[in-house]
């Protein structure tokens, strides 16, 4: 990947020199949306409405389109509701959201800063949902919803369970440590395309 040599694609000495590799990367991964920056409910609505119109115009099957929309709502609100407080020593990492595709699946990717002390409950929840089958996820969803409280902002709540149920695929994730207090949490969600 050419981009690794210089991360400044458009603001370096030769502003367009590396743009083609970026363009190619987008194209080859069927990336239809990338947003990197500050997330808010207003922005979420814009991204949702863009995606909804795009998938409708491409005649994506209704159930798949609805699953993507639902999962997107949970991911985007998870980012906008759980922002870390920006202090002097907080790593400057903007949150990222990507929609891409391959032949078999639509891919939703999110990446955002998280405090290290929030990792354990989130990781436990992710491992738990990955270990459960459809019926197990249904039961867990019902139990957690019944006992949920709105003061719980640990991020280990019901959203992840709903995402796992709707995606019907394993959730891939990673935690990249930035320093003793912060990590970047990345999540990859696959939604199988309707088999024709």
């Amino acid at each position, binding site marked *: 990947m050419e981009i690794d040599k210089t991360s400044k694609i458009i603001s370096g000495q030769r502003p367009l020199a590396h743009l083609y590799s970026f363009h190619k990367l987008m194209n080859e991964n069927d990336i239809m949306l990338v947003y990197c920056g500050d997330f808010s409910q207003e922005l979420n609505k814009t991204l949702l409405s863009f995606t909804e119109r795009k998938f409708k115009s491409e005649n994506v099957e209704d159930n798949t389109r609805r699953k993507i*929309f639902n999962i997107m*709502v949970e991911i985007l609100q998870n980012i906008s509701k759980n922002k870390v407080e920006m202090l002097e020593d907080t790593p400057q990492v903007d949150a990222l959201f990507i929609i891409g595709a391959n032949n078999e699946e639509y891919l939703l990717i999110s990446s955002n800063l998280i405090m290290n002390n929030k990792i354990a409950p989130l990781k436990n929840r992710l491992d738990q949902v990955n270990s459960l089958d459809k019926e197990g996820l249904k039961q867990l969803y019902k139990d957690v*919803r019944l006992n949920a409280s709105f003061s719980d902002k640990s991020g280990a709540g*019901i*959203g992840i*369970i709903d995402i796992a149920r709707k995606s019907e695929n394993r959730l891939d994730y990673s935690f990249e440590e930035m320093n003793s207090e912060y990590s970047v949490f990345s999540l990859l969600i696959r939604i199988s395309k309707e088999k024709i």
Partner: protein
Amino acid sequence: METIKIAATEDTPNVILDPSNNQFEISGRSLPEDVVVFYQPVMQWFEELEKTPIENMALSIKLEYFNTASSKLILDILLKLEEIFQNGTKLNVIWYYLSSDSDMKEAGEEYSEIVGLPFKLAEY
């Protein structure tokens, strides 16, 4: 009982709780970021309902999308109705889902398994 009418927006549902016209409906999209704020007057209305129940009330829920936070609030409303029903007031809930929307049908089935009150699923 007072009447509540909240017009739908891009991320909040249409809410009609109108005793004089015997119309009770939550419909559209329920995706607010802060569900507690949005549903506060609605929950308040159902709290009042417990004191002055409406006989044969039918609540229609016809949602296109809802986030998990709304899902919890809807459960709270249904549990309140269950309480009123079990105190002896006749009422029922109709859960509408698009015929092509299997997830919305399943969501209705799951609510009906949890709450003990007359709960009907209706395809449209």
